[in-house]
């Protein structure tokens, strides 16, 4: 397989897993208004779960890495388990945000949780092999020839995305989507209508967490390794930027944003020539552009490239009327007066 071909494979797998992750975060933040700045933790949870379930006991391979469990379960089982663990971790994170405090305060707490998770996992060498992380994570198609195996993996990620897309559509469209968006726009109104805000919030975090868990598992199985370096707190911001730039609450917008940010930007900077006196410059440049993009969009166009589409209702007399309510940017910017 030529270098270019392999790079295309890598890009496609990254795009697929990032799409799943972005859809999960969009469900939590764009649709439900949950300020989850710790989203990367559920992705990491999924990746680690897949790893420790599909690897054998840690004494194998010369015992160079120490971790818990190690059941050598088949791929599908491990991925489903990763989704479940992602959901559970998502709910646990969500519980900290249930208290009636301001959204940015909640966001800050989740940011701290994210920072802490990296520190704790990195410090404890017996739990998930500390800073070094886990490697030799089994790829389900490793028995096939490299070319066939890689493209089969791309196909599988594609299938996962298609399934994920339909699942997401069920949540973001229809009555559930309306309830979640209503909760985002006005919690008290939704509560007055008889919905349990707690249940809605935790449910969105569970489903979002499941998406993140699958994304992490697929990524870990492909790369074959996973360590604290892969899930620093800035990764959540990359996804959040993708959602903000593309358009919160708009499925196509989020997908486009993910493609632009996760693939074009963060991968594109790898193509800049490395300056030998400054290592790590190109990667740093990617993050700088990301931060500037986020700030610029929040300044100039908080709704993103593709605005959220509000439903139009036809009145009985036949004339179209847009539904009342703000332009969808209410959580980030005040509605236009």
């Amino acid at each position: 397989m030529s270098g270019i071909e392999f790079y295309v494979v890598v890009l496609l797998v990254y795009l697929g897993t990032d799409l799943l992750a972005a859809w999960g975060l969009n469900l939590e933040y764009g649709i439900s208004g949950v300020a989850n700045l710790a989203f990367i933790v559920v992705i990491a949870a999924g990746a680690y779960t897949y790893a420790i379930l599909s690897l054998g006991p840690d004494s194998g391979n010369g015992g160079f890495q120490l971790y818990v469990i190690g059941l050598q379960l088949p791929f599908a089982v491990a991925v489903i388990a990763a989704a479940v663990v992602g959901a559970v971790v998502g709910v646990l994170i969500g519980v900290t945000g249930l208290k009636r405090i301001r959204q940015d305060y909640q966001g800050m707490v989740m940011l701290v949780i994210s920072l802490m998770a990296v520190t704790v996992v990195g410090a404890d060498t017996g739990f998930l092999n500390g800073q070094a992380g886990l490697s030799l994570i089994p790829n389900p198609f490793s028995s096939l020839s490299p070319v066939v195996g890689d493209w089969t993996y791309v196909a599988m990620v594609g299938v996962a995305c298609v399934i994920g897309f339909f699942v997401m559509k069920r949540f973001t469209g229809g009555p559930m989507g309306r309830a979640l968006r209503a909760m985002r726009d006005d919690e008290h109104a939704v509560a007055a209508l008889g919905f349990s805000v707690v249940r809605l919030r935790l449910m969105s975090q569970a489903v979002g967490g499941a998406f993140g868990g699958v994304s992490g598992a697929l990524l870990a199985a492909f790369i074959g390794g996973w360590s604290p370096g892969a899930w620093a707190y800035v990764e959540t911001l990359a996804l959040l930027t993708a959602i903000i730039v593309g358009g919160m609450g708009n499925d196509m917008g989020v997908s486009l944003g993910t493609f632009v940010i996760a693939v074009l930007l963060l991968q594109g900077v790898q193509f800049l020539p490395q300056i030998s006196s400054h290592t790590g410059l190109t990667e740093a440049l990617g993050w700088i552009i990301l931060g500037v993009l986020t700030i610029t969009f929040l300044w100039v166009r908080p709704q993103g490239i593709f605005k959220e589409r509000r439903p139009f209702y036809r009145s009985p007399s036949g004339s179209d009327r847009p539904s009342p309510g703000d332009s969808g940017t209410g959580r980030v910017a005040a509605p236009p007066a």
Partner: protein
Amino acid sequence: MHLLIEAIGFGVASGAVLALGAVGFTLQFGISNVLNITYGSLMTLAAFLGVFLLGLGLNVWLVMALGGLLIGLASVALNRGLLAPLMRRGLQPFGLIIVTVSAGIVIQYVIVAVAGPSTLSYGNLSGATLHFLGWTLTTAQVVILVVALVLMAGLHVLLTRTQLGRAMRATSSNRTLARSCGIATGRIGDIAWFLSGTFCGMAGIALAITIESFDFTLGSIFLIPIIAAAVLGGVGQPYGAMVGGLVVGIVSQVSAAYWSPSYENVVALAMLIVMLLVRPRGLFGANSSSRKLLA
């Protein structure tokens, strides 16, 4: 018992630095009602600027003062250039925190782009080891402790005895009312951001002095206990932040002594979460500031 007393000593020393950082953080929230996550990256910036200034041969304590002043100016620029205009445009608190996180990332990675990702060190500035009250502290730690005490005493005098301090407290409590009383809230805001930025810069350099080596993640690591200290004391309450810093410092060091050194910050986080679930306005949170935090 001896271990406990020694740990408390370390806790007081680290608590002093945390208190400096927390007071700055909490002042910014009090004045502008924004949780400024860029604070961490500004501490990192101070530490790196300190390396440059030390390279010019300046005395380390002068470097701490200079670094503080520079970051004070940077903080004013941050507020005037980014945060205040966005707030005027109607950006909600969560949008603002994303902006501060993004700005923090930009600053952090500019540091990486300029100075590289490798670790730096101020070298051994500890000085002689001093023994008193059963504590074992280095000269540097004692100097930082004294500096922190002096600065906090100065802040107390400023807030309670001067017109400026009264204006700051009024703006912090109710901005609109302060304005209608004739207080120039814009200018007061600038001064408050400068002061809190100075605390930020000094905390960053103090951190760099006391730990062996650091890299561009310095700020994001130490932001955790600083936020914990600020929340513990009640965001927006400077005295709360002072107490909070001390408490977080002592509890962290004691648990590090008895449990494991790598879990220092875990304890800080646990305190933060418990505080948040039980009493979000913190120990000293007055009702007016707690209203700001509730949804």
